[in-house]
């Protein structure tokens, strides 16, 4: 089965529809599936619900889909640094479901592992707990959180082989692994595609069984949201 597509548009062809649930990797502008987001924007689908740690910046990352008004709801842990999101939210044009960062990661991981829900102590006694069932274990209260199973997962990885076995770099791995596993269909963009056997099996971060479609996204103009450096002492 061929998983490699010539570009992001063809990798997503026939997979997108209005009102679908998308899980996307990324943390700030790090490890964001930019080519695939561009292709979703160009497809014109609307009413999207997107589960992603952040909502992108103004005009960057998922911010592109906010600007084009294709998003109905975000499931995120943090939506700051984005004026357009703020404007749409305050105007009642977009819905947000806040999910604490570790809870969001586990909701995706659970969805990918076939686990419909789990108990966590995070958020007990806060707004996050509203409307959620609770359980007591060993004298402590926990919230029942539901797993996320997305219609499609959009993922950015570093390297892939043609079977879709993936490697990530540094913190760009972030939510990409749990997002990939929770998608009914997982579409991945990478910086390099190599032949099967070229990657050391011990170095694979995500097995190719989770990956359905693959596209080479290079070359990348890697953006850094806030650049912080130090000077060498002389």
């Amino acid at each position, binding site marked *: 089965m061929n998983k490699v597509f010539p570009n992001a548009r063809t990798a997503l062809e026939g997979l997108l529809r209005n009102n679908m649930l998308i899980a996307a990797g990324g*943390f*700030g*502008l*790090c*490890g964001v599936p930019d080519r695939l987001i561009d292709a979703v924007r160009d497809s014109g689908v609307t009413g999207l619900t997107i589960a992603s*740690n952040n909502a992108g910046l103004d005009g960057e990352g998922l911010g592109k889909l906010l600007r084009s008004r294709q998003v109905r709801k975000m499931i995120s842990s*943090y939506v700051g640094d984005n004026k357009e999101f703020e404007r749409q939210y305050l105007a009642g044009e977009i819905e947000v479901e806040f999910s604490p*960062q570790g809870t969001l990661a586990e909701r995706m991981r659970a969805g990918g592992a076939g686990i419909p829900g789990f108990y966590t102590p995070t958020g007990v006694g806060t707004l996050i707990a509203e409307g959620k069932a609770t359980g007591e274990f060993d004298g402590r209260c926990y919230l029942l959180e539901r797993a996320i199973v997305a219609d499609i997962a959009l993922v950015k990885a*570093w390297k892939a082989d043609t079977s879709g076995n993936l490697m990530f*770099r*540094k*913190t*760009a791995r*972030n939510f990409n692994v749990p997002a990939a596993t929770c998608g009914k269909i997982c579409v991945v963009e990478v910086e390099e595609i190599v032949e099967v056997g070229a990657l050391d099996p011990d170095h694979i971060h995500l097995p190719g069984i989770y990956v359905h479609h693959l596209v080479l996204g290079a070359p990348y103009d*890697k*953006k*850094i*949201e*806030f*650049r*912080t*450096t*130090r*000077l*060498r002492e002389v």
Partner: protein
Amino acid sequence: MSWTRDQIADRAARELRDGYRVNLGIGIPTLVAIHIPHGMTVTLQSENGTLGICPFPYVGEEDAAKATARYL
């Protein structure tokens, strides 16, 4: 006169003790990484899950794949 962000981070860093494992949350806390007292060994954890992160890169050695919670 109010404190600068670096002064706040420096003051917070003085709360650290040798051997601590330290979670750096979003914002000013990430600046604590560059104010760890000399000779002290602590293990830092960043909000997005990395363990054992190090001080900020030298100019010219920035890497878009390395992010912490703000002040990448």
